Protein backbone atom coordinates (compact mmCIF):
# COMPACT_ATOMS: atom_id res chain seq x y z
CA UNK A 1 0.00 0.00 0.00
CA UNK A 2 0.89 3.67 0.00
CA UNK A 3 3.47 4.80 2.54
CA UNK A 4 5.61 7.74 3.61
CA UNK A 5 9.11 7.37 5.03
CA UNK A 6 10.89 9.92 7.16
CA UNK A 7 14.25 8.42 7.99
CA UNK A 8 15.27 10.79 10.75
CA UNK A 9 13.36 10.71 13.98
CA UNK A 10 15.37 13.56 15.46
CA UNK A 11 17.44 16.27 13.82
CA UNK A 12 19.46 18.55 16.06
CA UNK A 13 20.97 21.70 14.56
CA UNK A 14 22.70 24.84 15.62
CA UNK A 15 20.88 28.05 14.83
CA UNK A 16 21.87 29.44 11.44
CA UNK A 17 22.74 26.14 9.84
CA UNK A 18 20.75 24.76 6.90
CA UNK A 19 17.86 22.40 7.47
CA UNK A 20 17.06 19.32 5.43
CA UNK A 21 14.40 16.85 6.50
CA UNK A 22 14.03 13.81 4.30
CA UNK A 23 10.78 12.44 2.95
CA UNK A 24 10.24 9.65 0.46
CA UNK A 25 7.02 7.98 -0.48
CA UNK A 26 5.46 5.05 -2.24
CA UNK A 27 2.19 5.17 -4.10
CA UNK A 28 0.54 3.34 -6.94
CA UNK A 29 -0.97 6.57 -8.21
CA UNK A 30 0.92 8.70 -10.72
CA UNK A 31 -0.69 11.90 -9.46
CA UNK A 32 0.69 12.10 -5.93
CA UNK A 33 -0.03 15.07 -3.66
CA UNK A 34 2.61 15.67 -1.00
CA UNK A 35 2.39 17.84 2.10
CA UNK A 36 4.58 19.00 4.97
CA UNK A 37 2.86 19.75 8.27
CA UNK A 38 4.50 21.43 11.25
CA UNK A 39 3.27 20.51 14.72
CA UNK A 40 4.17 22.62 17.72
CA UNK A 41 3.50 21.19 21.16
CA UNK A 42 -0.12 21.68 22.31
CA UNK A 43 -1.10 23.27 19.01
CA UNK A 44 -2.81 22.00 15.86
CA UNK A 45 -0.67 20.57 13.07
CA UNK A 46 -0.44 23.28 10.45
CA UNK A 47 0.16 22.96 6.72
CA UNK A 48 3.57 24.26 5.76
CA UNK A 49 3.98 23.23 2.13
CA UNK A 50 2.12 21.25 -0.51
CA UNK A 51 2.83 20.14 -4.04
CA UNK A 52 1.68 17.90 -6.82
CA UNK A 53 3.83 19.30 -9.62
CA UNK A 54 6.94 17.39 -10.57
CA UNK A 55 10.24 19.26 -10.29
CA UNK A 56 8.67 22.52 -9.20
CA UNK A 57 9.97 24.24 -6.07
CA UNK A 58 7.35 25.36 -3.58
CA UNK A 59 8.14 27.84 -0.81
CA UNK A 60 6.49 29.13 2.34
CA UNK A 61 7.77 30.91 5.44
CA UNK A 62 11.41 30.37 4.50
CA UNK A 63 10.98 26.64 3.90
CA UNK A 64 11.02 25.03 0.48
CA UNK A 65 10.58 21.63 -1.07
CA UNK A 66 10.58 20.17 -4.56
CA UNK A 67 8.55 17.13 -5.50
CA UNK A 68 10.68 14.71 -7.51
CA UNK A 69 8.53 11.93 -8.85
CA UNK A 70 11.51 10.14 -10.37
CA UNK A 71 12.93 9.54 -6.90
CA UNK A 72 9.60 9.74 -5.01
CA UNK A 73 10.98 12.41 -2.73
CA UNK A 74 9.76 15.63 -1.17
CA UNK A 75 12.54 16.80 1.14
CA UNK A 76 11.99 19.88 3.29
CA UNK A 77 14.73 22.49 3.32
CA UNK A 78 15.54 25.85 4.84
CA UNK A 79 18.71 27.82 4.33
CA UNK A 80 19.11 28.95 7.93
CA UNK A 81 17.50 27.35 10.98
CA UNK A 82 15.89 29.52 13.66
CA UNK A 83 15.17 28.63 17.25
CA UNK A 84 11.46 29.00 16.53
CA UNK A 85 11.67 26.23 13.92
CA UNK A 86 11.95 23.64 16.70
CA UNK A 87 8.89 21.43 16.23
CA UNK A 88 7.66 18.12 14.84
CA UNK A 89 7.50 17.97 11.05
CA UNK A 90 5.28 15.45 9.28
CA UNK A 91 5.43 14.58 5.62
CA UNK A 92 2.12 13.33 4.26
CA UNK A 93 0.74 11.85 1.06
CA UNK A 94 -2.77 12.27 -0.24
CA UNK A 95 -4.27 8.96 -1.11
CA UNK A 96 -6.60 8.97 -4.08
CA UNK A 97 -7.59 5.38 -3.60
CA UNK A 98 -10.92 3.91 -2.70
CA UNK A 99 -10.67 5.39 0.78
CA UNK A 100 -11.14 8.86 -0.63
CA UNK A 101 -9.35 11.95 0.54
CA UNK A 102 -7.21 10.62 3.33
CA UNK A 103 -3.70 11.60 4.34
CA UNK A 104 -0.98 9.06 4.95
CA UNK A 105 1.58 10.43 7.38
CA UNK A 106 5.21 9.68 7.94
CA UNK A 107 6.46 8.98 11.45
CA UNK A 108 7.52 12.58 11.86
CA UNK A 109 10.88 14.27 12.41
CA UNK A 110 11.55 16.27 15.54
CA UNK A 111 13.67 19.27 14.66
CA UNK A 112 15.57 20.72 17.59
CA UNK A 113 17.41 23.98 16.95
CA UNK A 114 19.99 25.00 19.56
CA UNK A 115 21.54 28.44 20.06
Amino acid sequence: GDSVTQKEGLVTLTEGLPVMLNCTYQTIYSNAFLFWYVHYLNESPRLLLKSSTDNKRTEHQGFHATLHKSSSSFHLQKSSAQLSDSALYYCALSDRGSSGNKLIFGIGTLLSVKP
Partner: protein
Amino acid sequence: GALVYQYPRRTICKSGTSMRMECQAVGFQATSVAWYRQSPQKTFELIALSTVNSAIKYEQNFTQEKFPISHPNLSFSSMTVLNAYLEDRGLYLCGARLGGRDYAEQFFGPGTRLTVL
Protein backbone atom coordinates in the same frame (compact mmCIF):
# COMPACT_ATOMS: atom_id res chain seq x y z
CA GLY B 1 -9.77 32.25 9.13
CA ALA B 2 -10.45 28.55 9.22
CA LEU B 3 -10.18 26.94 12.64
CA VAL B 4 -10.94 23.54 14.02
CA TYR B 5 -11.74 23.07 17.70
CA GLN B 6 -11.65 19.81 19.57
CA TYR B 7 -13.12 19.08 22.97
CA PRO B 8 -11.97 17.93 25.42
CA ARG B 9 -8.26 18.57 25.00
CA ARG B 10 -7.38 15.90 27.53
CA THR B 11 -9.36 13.14 29.12
CA ILE B 12 -8.76 10.18 31.38
CA CYS B 13 -11.05 7.18 31.52
CA LYS B 14 -11.05 3.86 33.25
CA SER B 15 -10.37 0.75 31.26
CA GLY B 16 -13.61 -0.61 29.80
CA THR B 17 -15.46 2.70 29.88
CA SER B 18 -16.29 4.96 26.97
CA MET B 19 -15.61 8.55 26.14
CA ARG B 20 -16.87 10.97 23.54
CA MET B 21 -14.87 13.64 21.78
CA GLU B 22 -16.04 16.50 19.61
CA CYS B 23 -14.76 18.39 16.61
CA GLN B 24 -16.05 21.73 15.37
CA ALA B 25 -15.06 23.60 12.22
CA VAL B 26 -15.32 27.37 12.57
CA GLY B 27 -15.18 29.82 9.71
CA PHE B 28 -15.86 27.27 7.00
CA GLN B 29 -18.07 24.36 6.17
CA ALA B 30 -16.16 21.12 5.96
CA THR B 31 -16.99 18.80 3.09
CA SER B 32 -15.20 15.98 4.83
CA VAL B 33 -14.01 15.22 8.33
CA ALA B 34 -11.30 12.71 9.10
CA TRP B 35 -10.47 11.25 12.50
CA TYR B 36 -6.89 10.16 13.15
CA ARG B 37 -5.21 8.52 16.10
CA GLN B 38 -1.58 8.88 17.08
CA SER B 39 -0.62 6.09 19.45
CA PRO B 40 2.59 6.41 21.49
CA GLN B 41 5.68 6.17 19.28
CA LYS B 42 3.55 6.01 16.16
CA THR B 43 2.37 8.36 13.44
CA PHE B 44 -1.15 9.53 12.72
CA GLU B 45 -3.36 6.70 11.56
CA LEU B 46 -6.68 7.30 9.86
CA ILE B 47 -9.65 5.90 11.76
CA ALA B 48 -12.46 6.98 9.49
CA LEU B 49 -13.43 9.52 6.89
CA SER B 50 -16.81 11.18 6.84
CA THR B 51 -17.81 12.97 3.64
CA VAL B 52 -20.93 14.99 2.98
CA ASN B 53 -23.62 12.91 1.29
CA SER B 54 -21.63 9.70 1.72
CA ALA B 55 -21.49 7.01 4.34
CA ILE B 56 -18.73 7.15 6.94
CA LYS B 57 -15.87 4.96 5.78
CA TYR B 58 -13.72 3.19 8.36
CA GLU B 59 -10.19 2.08 7.75
CA GLN B 60 -8.99 -1.44 8.30
CA ASN B 61 -8.53 -2.19 12.01
CA PHE B 62 -11.16 0.38 12.99
CA THR B 63 -14.90 -0.30 13.18
CA GLN B 64 -18.09 1.61 13.70
CA GLU B 65 -18.86 -0.67 16.62
CA LYS B 66 -15.75 0.53 18.41
CA PHE B 67 -15.53 4.13 17.16
CA PRO B 68 -19.05 5.34 16.30
CA ILE B 69 -19.03 8.72 14.59
CA SER B 70 -21.77 11.28 14.27
CA HIS B 71 -21.53 13.96 11.58
CA PRO B 72 -24.89 15.76 11.71
CA ASN B 73 -23.83 18.86 9.76
CA LEU B 74 -20.93 20.40 7.87
CA SER B 75 -19.42 21.98 10.96
CA PHE B 76 -19.64 19.36 13.67
CA SER B 77 -18.48 15.81 14.20
CA SER B 78 -18.20 13.63 17.26
CA MET B 79 -16.58 10.28 17.84
CA THR B 80 -16.91 7.92 20.78
CA VAL B 81 -14.28 5.43 21.88
CA LEU B 82 -16.30 2.53 23.28
CA ASN B 83 -14.86 0.17 25.88
CA ALA B 84 -11.51 1.92 25.90
CA TYR B 85 -8.45 -0.11 26.76
CA LEU B 86 -4.77 0.64 27.05
CA GLU B 87 -4.17 0.28 23.29
CA ASP B 88 -6.69 3.08 22.65
CA ARG B 89 -4.61 5.71 24.38
CA GLY B 90 -3.10 8.44 22.29
CA LEU B 91 -3.84 11.72 20.56
CA TYR B 92 -7.02 11.82 18.50
CA LEU B 93 -6.95 14.41 15.75
CA CYS B 94 -9.83 15.72 13.75
CA GLY B 95 -9.08 17.05 10.28
CA ALA B 96 -11.68 19.05 8.36
CA ARG B 97 -11.32 19.61 4.66
CA LEU B 98 -12.87 22.31 2.53
CA GLY B 99 -13.53 21.08 -0.96
CA GLY B 100 -13.41 17.58 -2.36
CA ARG B 101 -10.17 17.78 -4.26
CA ASP B 102 -7.07 16.04 -3.02
CA TYR B 103 -5.24 19.32 -3.04
CA ALA B 104 -7.70 20.94 -0.69
CA GLU B 105 -6.06 21.76 2.59
CA GLN B 106 -7.04 19.77 5.64
CA PHE B 107 -7.31 21.89 8.79
CA PHE B 108 -6.56 20.08 12.00
CA GLY B 109 -7.72 20.59 15.53
CA PRO B 110 -5.28 20.44 18.45
CA GLY B 111 -6.43 16.94 19.31
CA THR B 112 -7.95 15.12 22.26
CA ARG B 113 -5.40 13.25 24.32
CA LEU B 114 -6.87 10.09 25.79
CA THR B 115 -5.32 8.35 28.76
CA VAL B 116 -6.73 4.99 29.80
CA LEU B 117 -6.16 3.77 33.35
